[in-house]
């Protein structure tokens, strides 16, 4: 059995022992040191150099950032407030992307919490790799690893029930169907859910900037855009699936042409994914039959482009695997009318910062969670899907003498 991984049979007893462990104070130094060791380990290991997911993780938990988070955890607004760990956190990462659990687990660890992490046997190779990294970093007898249980099981309602009943916080990485399923296990009355469900993300490119930019500038844009689109085969909640060309309708055509030309020049190489073009074609044909999509460019297997009506009933339908649907909007106000609850990331390029800042309150009120420059769509942040993970993993106690 993978070191660090507990079987379903052992789980109930191990949970009992886990609950006997006290939580640590939030922002403890040894936790900071541990996360720093994890980050360094990933960045220095030659075998992990080309592992994009892990390198992103390492970057996110680099020393300067973790120290800042820890400092914030230790600080309180007033002497009458004390921040303590929330307790036991039950993490349910996506079956095929176990790396996500490290994010919520690390925030829980930094907050001093105990953790139970469910890992699917289907992603055993990946799980083994992740646990190996954590174990090599080592956290000692009283560190976060000693306060954690990593359990491998497939679909086991009784284990879901057990962990849900015994946790103070349950973190479910979605999508919506998974959340509904896990929610069939009732929580302890005093516990809460933090859920990361199905989300939609898109990109906005300024038309005037596209038309007027140099080839070099466009090459840089395309490199970043491809990075955002190709990661996770465009299936992550932050993966942009639509592009809004912001500006006058008359310039949209030339803007798309410049984008296509830069795409053709791009040296980005991507391993083919078996069957993706057949699946993409299946999608674009279905949408075209319904009148929702037109003008499909299939020349570049890395990325297909198509014109797609964002404001119609199929505006959020998507195939993933390298397809961007383009639509044109005159103003940010129009774009704001597209946004709704469940949208997450808007990446932007070439848009006037003042215009962005002015529009952001309305975009956020409509449902948008975050706004980042193109190239940073997949960068994780402690503020995610409307949550502040530091706040979620801790609770505040008050004292008056």
């Amino acid at each position, binding site marked *: 059995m993978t070191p660090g991984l507990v079987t379903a049979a052992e789980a109930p007893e191990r949970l009992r022992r886990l609950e006997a462990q006290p939580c640590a104070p939030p922002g403890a130094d040894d936790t900071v040191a541990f996360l720093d060791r994890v980050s360094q380990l990933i960045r220095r290991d030659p075998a992990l150099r080309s592992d994009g997911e892990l390198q992103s993780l390492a970057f996110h938990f680099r020393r300067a950032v973790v120290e800042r988070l820890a400092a914030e955890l230790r600080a309180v607004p007033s002497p009458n407030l004390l921040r303590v760990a929330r307790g036991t956190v039950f993490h349910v990462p996506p079956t*095929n992307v176990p790396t996500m659990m490290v994010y919520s687990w690390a925030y829980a660890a930094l907050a001093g919490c105990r953790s139970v992490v469910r890992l699917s046997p289907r992603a055993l190779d990946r799980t083994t790799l992740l646990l190996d990294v954590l174990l090599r970093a080592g956290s000692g007898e009283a560190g976060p690893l000693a306060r954690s249980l990593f359990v491998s099981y497939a679909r086991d*309602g009784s284990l879901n029930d057990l962990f849900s009943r015994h946790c103070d916080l349950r973190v479910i990485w979605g999508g919506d169907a*998974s959340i509904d*399923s896990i929610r069939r296990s009732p929580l302890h009355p005093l516990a809460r859910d933090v859920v990361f469900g199905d989300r939609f993300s898109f990109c906005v490119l300024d038309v005037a900037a596209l038309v007027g930019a140099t080839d070099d500038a466009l090459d840089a844009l395309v490199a970043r855009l491809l990075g955002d689109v190709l990661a996770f085969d465009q299936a992550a909640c932050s993966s942009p699936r639509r592009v809004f060309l912001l500006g006058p309708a008359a310039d949209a055509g030339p803007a798309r042409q410049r984008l296509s030309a830069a795409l053709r020049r791009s040296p980005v190489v991507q391993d083919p994914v078996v069957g993706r073009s*057949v699946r993409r074609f299946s999608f674009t044909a279905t949408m075209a*039959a319904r009148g929702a999509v037109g003008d*499909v460019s299939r020349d570049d*297997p890395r990325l297909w482009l198509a014109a797609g009506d964002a404001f119609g009933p199929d505006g959020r339908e998507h195939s993933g695997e390298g397809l961007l649907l383009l639509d044109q909007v005159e103003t940010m106000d129009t774009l704001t009318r597209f946004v709704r609850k469940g949208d997450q990331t808007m990446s932007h390029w070439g848009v006037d910062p003042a215009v962005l800042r002015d529009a952001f309150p309305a975009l956020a009120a409509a449902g948008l969670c975050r706004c980042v420059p193109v190239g940073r769509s997949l960068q994780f942040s402690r503020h995610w899907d409307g949550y502040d993970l530091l706040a979620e993993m801790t609770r505040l106690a008050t004292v008056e003498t």
Partner: protein
Amino acid sequence: MTLFDRAIRAPFAIPEDEKRRELLDALVEVHHLHAAACEPYRRVVTAHWGATPTLATMADLPFLPVSLFKTETLRSVPEAEVVSVVRSSGTTGDRVSQVFLDRATAGRQVAALAAIMRTVLGDRRLPMLIVDARETLADRRSPSARAAGILGLMNFGRDHTFVLDRELELQRDVLDAFLARHPEGPLLIFGFTFLVWSRLIGALGASGADLSRATLIHSGGWKKLEAEKVDNATFRRVAQEVGGIRRIHNFYGMAEQVGSVFLEDTDGRLCAPAFADVIIRDPETLAPLPPGQSGVVQVLSCLPTSYPGHSLLTEDLGVVHEAVAGAEWQGTRFSILGRLPRTQLRGCSDVIAAGVERAP
């Protein structure tokens, strides 16, 4: 005489270059028919090939994905003219394809199948053993693809005998009685590949049976047999060992392109009849590939006029073989290698939610 009329007389006898030219003309005509009569088809073509694509070669012809028939209504004749709606078998959990036939297209389907089968069965109806249950034919108005296949082949047989019970178990007594009724002369056995393998050949037991007078026609794909590591060569060998069956013809076809029946000739390779053809496409770029390179299979047929099923990109992988000089049958030779895998689920969205088990 049209290509179709000539093809009906001799599906594998028209010289290749002659066939190619005439088939291309016929397909272009059918394409324009559907572009004018079927709005969703026109939209798909315009979106992917432009409003007026150049159609100089077979590979220039627009194609639809087979999956489109699962979700969209694709019809080129008024609803009142539809005489039959064929449903595809689909995979578990999938929606089923709907294919709309008018009298003309249905008639061509029957004629095409008859023409092809005559080449291996001769002109007379043969005593026919069906490796399936009678219950499979329950819904006559809207037959499943499996039922449609059986009904189509039944035209070539007589004394139709369903040799499996409703649980799809072999009824040995029924088989023996059939053989006793027809002690001499050729026989016809038809069934779906996985049923023939597991419920006939696999159920004959140690003593086997003498089915050496039979021509076995089977279809349905090798996917279900992949798990048992049974390929065409194994199938043929065991069928001969256990049942004495030497004349075996697999056929490849799909509910979405009725009448397109690609029959295995005596050298074990599928062959395109004169009114149909096969193109292999690169799975990444969808560009056409030459013989010898495997890729996604596109099937073409000038038969479907009531619905736009004349040019379809399948979800199968295959390869076209180089033409062999002096081959008995004319027509593109190819093999089916398997199915394209389904999507790998990645990213934060995780759809594995159903079926959580609980202790009682």
